[in-house]
């Protein structure tokens, strides 16, 4: 592969200093499975996507590693590995939607080094974007090849000039849980709701998050689930089993349901849109209703806003099926317990 400068800061302050110095040529490096072994080795570059010549290793910055969970909620360092999240008793008990997603990311090898921050910031899936010889609009070129080409895996929702899909299994769960990102930069820290964290191509063709090049995701703050919160997550891949294959569709559901009636909640879709896509139309149709009764019609609301392309109508059917399945699964599992100081 081509060269780069590897920086190994010990602190968040040191890391953001480096990011600020090197600007668009710098990238934070965590597990590196997508950045180094994917984007950089495959030379996914273009006018709007320069080859990163400076990598800032945040994997060993102590402030960014670890899970603190209790009655106030959870704080998870962005450099915490996926396996640590998947195996965390607190996460599994109180935020199972996150634990389930973490457990099914890629492969056990990748979960061993891949991190929360890396999972949220991996570049999107679209084989035209990922292949070095298509100078696509996402890389600063002029057009989206998926419009006329084979678009069986592209977005059915929220595409605009560019039809990538957001690949992260964890991002949908963080939006569903109403989590926040703590972001550092040389100019100071800020918090961003994950609702506002991800950018679609309509907002910015070249970036997928609101982070500026000198900003770094330090940790994720997850609120305590309200009483009677039901949670579930699931994905469907092309291959039958959920291993090393990106989701054709995934659904994260976090819902407050009392006596079968929807009080509030979020249903967030992955693998079907350029960002983790909140299915507000479905949530609205369920609001105040008996979930089991209203579900089939509520799910069909997706059809009204979806814009499938030539080869991916089936993804619409899949995501409708999956929403029903995940919501029912969450209901049947019953409410998740409220975190206590005694621990999971």
């Amino acid at each position, binding site marked *: 592969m081509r060269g780069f400068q*590897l920086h190994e800061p010990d602190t968040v302050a040191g890391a953001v200093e480096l990011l600020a110095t090197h600007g668009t040529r710098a990238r934070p490096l965590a597990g590196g499975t997508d950045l180094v072994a994917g984007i950089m080795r495959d030379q996914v570059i273009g006018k709007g996507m320069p080859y990163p010549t400076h990598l800032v290793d945040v994997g060993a910055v102590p402030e960014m590693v670890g899970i603190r969970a209790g009655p106030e909620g959870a704080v998870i360092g962005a450099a915490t590995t996926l396996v640590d999240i998947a195996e965390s008793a607190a996460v599994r008990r109180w935020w199972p939607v996150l634990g389930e997603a973490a457990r099914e990311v*890629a492969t056990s090898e990748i979960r061993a080094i891949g991190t929360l921050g890396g999972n949220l910031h991996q570049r999107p899936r679209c084989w035209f974007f990922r292949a070095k010889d298509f100078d696509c609009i996402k890389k600063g070129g002029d057009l989206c090849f998926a419009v006329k080409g084979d678009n069986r895996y592209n977005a059915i929702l929220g595409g605009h000039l560019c039809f990538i899909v957001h690949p992260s299994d964890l991002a949908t769960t963080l939006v569903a849980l109403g989590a926040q990102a703590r972001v550092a930069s040389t100019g100071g820290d800020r918090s961003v709701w994950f609702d506002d964290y991800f950018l679609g191509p309509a907002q910015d063709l070249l970036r997928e998050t609101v982070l500026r090049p000198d900003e770094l995701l330090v940790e994720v703050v997850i609120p305590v689930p309200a009483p009677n919160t039901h949670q579930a997550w699931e994905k469907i891949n092309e291959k039958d089993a959920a291993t090393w294959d990106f989701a054709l569709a995934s659904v994260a559901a976090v819902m407050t349901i009392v006596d079968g009636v929807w009080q509030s909640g979020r249903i967030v879709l992955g693998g079907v849109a350029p960002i983790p896509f909140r299915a507000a139309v479905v949530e609205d149709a369920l609001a105040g209703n008996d979930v089991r009764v209203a579900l089939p019609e509520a799910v069909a609301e997706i059809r009204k806003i979806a814009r499938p392309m030539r080869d991916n109508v089936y993804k619409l059917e899949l995501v409708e099926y999956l929403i029903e399945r995940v919501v029912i699964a969450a209901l049947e599992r019953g409410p998740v317990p409220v975190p206590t100081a005694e621990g999971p």
Partner: protein
Amino acid sequence: MSEPATTSRADPADADSASTTSTHRVALNIDDTDYELVVESRESLWETMVYRLGLTGANMGCDRAQCGVCNVVIDGRSVNSCAVLTARLGGKTVVTVTGLRTGPGIGGLHPLQRAFWEEGAFQCGICTKGFIMTSFALLQRNPHATDDEIRNALSGILCRCGEQARIVKAVRRASEELAAGTADQGQAAGPTTLMPATSEVLGTRVRRIHGMGSVTEEGMYVSLMKLPDMVYVRTLRSPYSRARVLRIDASRAEQLTGVVHVLHRFNLPDPYRTVSIEGPPERRLFNEEIVQVGMPVVVVAAESEHIADDALALIEVEYEALEPALDHLTAATASKQWENPLSGTVRTVIPPVAVGETDRALAESDFVVENTTTTPFAQHVPLELRTGLYFWEGDTLITYQTTHRTFDVRRELAKWLLLPEDRVRVIQTGFMGSSYGSADQLVEELVLPAVMAKIIGRPVRSMLSREESFLTSAHRGRTRTHVKLGVSSEGVFEGVAVDVLYDGGTNAGLPASAAASRGLTGVGAMGAWYVFQILYSYPHQKYEGTEVWTNNFRAGPMRGVGRHFGLFALETTIEKAAYATGIDPLQLRLKNLNESGAVFDEVTGAAPGQPFCRPGGQRASLSRAAEIIDWKGQWHPPGAREVRPGVFHGIAIVSTIDRGGGKQGGAPPSAPPPPSSAQVALHPDGTLEVFSGSTEVGAGQRTLMAMIAAQTSGITLDAVEIAPGVDTGINTNTGPSNSSLQTNVAGWAVLEASEAVKQQLLARAATRFRTEFGADATQLEVRDGWVFVRGREDSRISVKDVVAGLDDPLTGTSDRRRALTFESVAVGAHAVEVEVNTRTGTIRVLRYVAVHDVGRVLNRLALEQQVEGGVVMGLGGALYEELLVDDQTGLPLNANILDYKPPSILEVPPIDVDFVEFPQDFGPYGAVAIGQASTPPVGPVLANAVHNAVGVWLTDLPLSRSRVMAALGSEQ
């Protein structure tokens, strides 16, 4: 619409990224050894181990964290060693298979290593270290892992040879041994061989004779090898499927520190400029006119692969883009052959082969079933990256190759380097991350590094990237097949008409040179003929085919040529006929079997061609498969068994066939058969040494040669020695390990050479037997290492005793060409039970049954493995795998392992393998090569089972979710 566009591939903004590379001091422990190193930022752990330290405890499969082949354990967790940067591993502890051993030999193996070998949990072995290390990490954390936990933990590692079930068994066995404390690792008195101390080995399960190399760091895969003072080459490839190379500016690359030489068509030395590799379309070492994506444009030699990559980014190439022909359906409408040879045209219209009056027969049939099927481009994805090491000694090229065609590679290299064959020496080490046909047609990639080594006077290492493997190796060609089958109301086949369209890409069928040498054209399409004509009988038959040339991938063999689309078309048509006539699908097949008769000549259509009589095997296979799957109990009308809401059960059974080791791909009877040769030496210490040019690809070729030698000579298998590799400087040609001919071709030669040694042994023993036992030489036999008097087994002298004191070994040789006939046909039957989810389009295989007739079983273990491997690769091709090409640019869309979607251990169902034995005269001991009979039936048996489950016909492979859902949607 030819755009005169030019393009610059250089990235000026990133000029000289080498100067930005940082170096790092790092201290880490690998396999109980401490290392203090200075490494580059971009160096992966795998590169450090192999390139810097010469450690061979991890193999390489993709360099993208997509296959698990390179897995090692770091601080207790299994990770992809390609994906971690060494610079970040300060203070870490790395364990590879090397670190699991407590000492040399079998006694020092970890229980996991031993279990993988003994359970036959690998064939080619390229993935084995990865599986062992991930299993090791799992058992450290979870010593009593269940089968499901084992499968989940191992699901990030691929095995293309299909040994998933045996892998789970091996891990479970090792975990039980470890838990019970019965593992004997470190015992001084451990065994020194896993080979049985008997000569009666045929028909038994014999483990790989060189398995030690697969479960440890000892097996020398070429991708693990280094030579002193070696340089690395990397290649700039065309992003255009058709273009002219106008200008190359490599000046900045040439000035980069560490770049040794840059080679392209404008500075290629004189003798090599004229070399024409093959054609049409013509391929030279560097083409002026690019005819497919990925053709080499510039080759860089540098002190490291990384520097070569830096150099590639500095090279500017100006292309004139030309209009490519990418659609085989459009290309087929051209009327004149080679009207426009470089822009897509009909390459070959195969003259119709007709027997009887098919049109009339179809017109008069009670039922005519029409069926149109398609199959996509597909890739073998052998897990070792294709690697060659090259160096020159004077005027002689010596090269190590990952190849299954050691002698063919020598011939090709000699031809393309303008050398006599004896000035090229090709060495295949015996360890190869397999082929499945992918290494059949390496062309520019084979010869350019040799030219580079000649020019710069240093050894050269060339390892293709995974993407390059996808681009440059030959693929299974894309096809469309029309079939019309006439059936009487009683279920008798009256006639069949078949029309094939075959997209040969830049290479229609076999390489033009090979095809021409056999007087052939149209091999790709014709590869399907015998599938139709041998399995079932029809009084009237007609075959037509068109092969088109396009600017797509080179078409070539993948687990055979023509079998897979032929069988898919045939068996889905028969299934439709069964439902059209209302006859049980199994009974319809049994009723129409072609068990004796004559096979017409595929080139001329003349009948009778080759007479044959093969009663029993096909019928017995179908009956046995039906019995195992409980056809009577499980079959039901389509859509009749909903097992859960929206989930339906389906069942199907089909026939299968391969013509292994016989006529190759439509070759006429006059074509010369491959050479068949071997030498065997019985040494004074009683060991029998076998010299065979039979190249090991993982299927157990070398083990089988040793077994045939033992069985024939009577010397125990543990006393038989055979080197793992083949060296054209030592061995003699016995044909390539393709067309599944090694059992029949190399096997016969070893049998004859061993028989010659046995006769000399008996002659030498005769005097002593006369004096000691009063026995005549004609009464003597050899078995299990003893010469004895027939019927008086206690009147015996050990072989060792007989040969002790010999000055020279007793030697036997065999060297001839055996005529090949239609006798070498392996048949079988596959049956499957599936569940189809109508909401998600999921096809879940519950149970798979494969029954084959191979004449006689020789190595039962290797045979079972070959069937399993074929089924697993067939499942991938039936359900997920297709190499996609963008129809605007010709660029591949999924030329990586992740997006190509080969099945993981979680998608592999239980596979029951069984054999029926109807010995044939053709092969040694009545055997015929199994060949690739186990891959082609998977597509049709699954498509038919889906129909049985949900009542829709799927006629396009793969049977993806979207296709299942679309078919169900259009039904509603």
